[in-house]
């Protein structure tokens, strides 16, 4: 079954300028999909439609087989979590534990069950030692991991990351990216990651390139990113390893398009 199926979706904020145009896309259950594209390509609008913050102008959105409607919206949202861009804008509790508890309280989870659920979720993101910490004392990467813990406590099937690492320093980015991979591989959670970071996108199974509200390409990262015409037309940056692979090919070396420096060098053999 598809986790998310978008069928001929259109959307406009002002009724004149279309943001999404007749867009169809399927996100398989348990997959890790990265959506890339320029500012204004419709990426974040798409996320807001999927969680029902916006309503499509035309077309259908199916989440876990159910067509989104006013009636089932809150039921569908139980299965879908979202982590936003700014780590400072999504803290509600005065401690890490309170923050993770917020969603549980809204779902009327009995207090006696809560503590164990909070501890379990915090452990999954490596934040067990910080349960009593105040959010202001955490780094950006830690804050985003707490946001993820809050979502995990709700046991979702799908998590959407909307540029969740773009405001983090490299260490914070790496820790959140590792967390995303782990959720996908170990918990089998469907991941939809909206990102500008091509290094992050290259760890996904499937990359979707959006351009002016339309799907410009879908496929494995190495296939999509090697589409030279597309990448240069959309002025998208290549992940470093692919840039290097292309430079090597240009110099006459026989290397395949790979997504890591180690894999690239593995293909070469010095003459002595």
């Amino acid at each position: 079954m598809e986790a998310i199926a978008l069928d001929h979706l259109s959307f406009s904020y002002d009724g004149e300028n279309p943001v999404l145009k007749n867009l169809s896309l399927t996100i398989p259950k348990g997959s890790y999909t990265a959506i890339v594209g320029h500012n204004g390509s419709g990426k974040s609008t798409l996320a807001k439609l999927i969680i029902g913050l916006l309503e499509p102008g035309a077309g259908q959105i199916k989440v876990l087989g159910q067509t989104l409607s006013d009636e089932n919206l809150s039921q569908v949202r139980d299965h879908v979590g979202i982590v936003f861009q700014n780590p400072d804008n999504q803290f509600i509790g005065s401690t890490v534990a309170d923050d993770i508890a917020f969603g549980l309280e809204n779902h009327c989870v009995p207090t006696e069950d809560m503590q164990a659920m909070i501890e379990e979720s915090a452990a999954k993101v490596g934040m067990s030692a910080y349960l009593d910490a105040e959010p202001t004392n955490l780094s950006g990467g830690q804050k985003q991991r707490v946001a993820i813990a809050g979502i995990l406590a709700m046991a979702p099937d799908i998590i959407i990351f909307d540029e969740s690492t773009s405001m983090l320093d490299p260490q914070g980015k790496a820790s959140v990216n590792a967390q995303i991979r782990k959720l996908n591989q170990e918990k089998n959670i469907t991941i939809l990651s909206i990102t500008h970071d091509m290094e992050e996108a290259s760890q996904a199974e499937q990359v979707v390139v959006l351009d002016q509200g339309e799907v410009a390409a879908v496929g494995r990262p190495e296939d999509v990113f090697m589409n030279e015409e597309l990448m240069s037309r959309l002025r998208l940056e290549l992940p470093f390893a692919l840039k290097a692979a292309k430079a090597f090919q240009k110099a006459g070396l026989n290397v395949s398009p790979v997504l890591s420096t180690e894999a690239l060098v593995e293909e070469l053999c010095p003459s002595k």
Partner: protein
Amino acid sequence: MSIKINDLEYTYSPGTPFEHQALKGVNLEIPEGKVTAIIGQTGSGKSTLVQHLNALLKPTKGSVEIAGFQITPDTKLKDAKMLRKKVGLVFQFPEYQLFEETIAKDIAFGPKNFGISEEETNQRIKEVLPLVGLDESYLERSPFELSGGQKRRVAIAGILVQDPEVLVLDEPAAGLDPQSAKEMMNLFMRLNQQAGKTILLVSHDMEHVLEYCDEVIVLADGQVKTQLPVHEFFKHPEILREIHINPPGIVNLKETLQNKGFQINPDTYSLDELAKEVESQVAGHE
């Protein structure tokens, strides 16, 4: 005139249980007219150091000489006003500091405080707008209608309008998409190359440091660990690893190639040149 930092020490909340020495005797000479990167882990003292450059913080000990001013533990705040006109400090995510109802008013806020006439301010705004890639049609709009990248340009215009000699930028490209980040960095390069501004860049992005900076200063635990020209600096990726920062892609690739037995010229920083060097050394090459 270069920036000189002499035996600079700074202690937060002295004499309280929260006492913390953030700078422990920093000595630096930062060249005029260059782009210098300041790097280091969170908590290494970067922010504390840059806040001394326009006297937002006063040294606990030692001194800072910058743009013709000397800042010592005895410097009075009222003397700092002219210094702040000459040393513009752009904080991280400056777009969150916009507050006026129009872009024109937001940009004019600084000059107004420095007592510059409205006429001159308006003239300066007209000069500054194209520098940051905005035009006059923006002036009467609310800054809150703009995209993140555009807001940041407005915030930076508010600093440039004071025509500072030195620009101190804390992570100016963080959170922008790659295209906007590139445009932002190119803007600072133009200010450096065409207007001769001295630029200090606090950054975690080693690709930017390699591409845009002339010199690198590494802070660790409140002290200067290293100060080197950029291409010398990246010959020592072990320094970066010690402070848990990943080297730029090309530096990492050079190292991986060397470990595999390739001879790589340490001065190579272009992918195309590196590819040629590798090609001449692969097995089967005649």
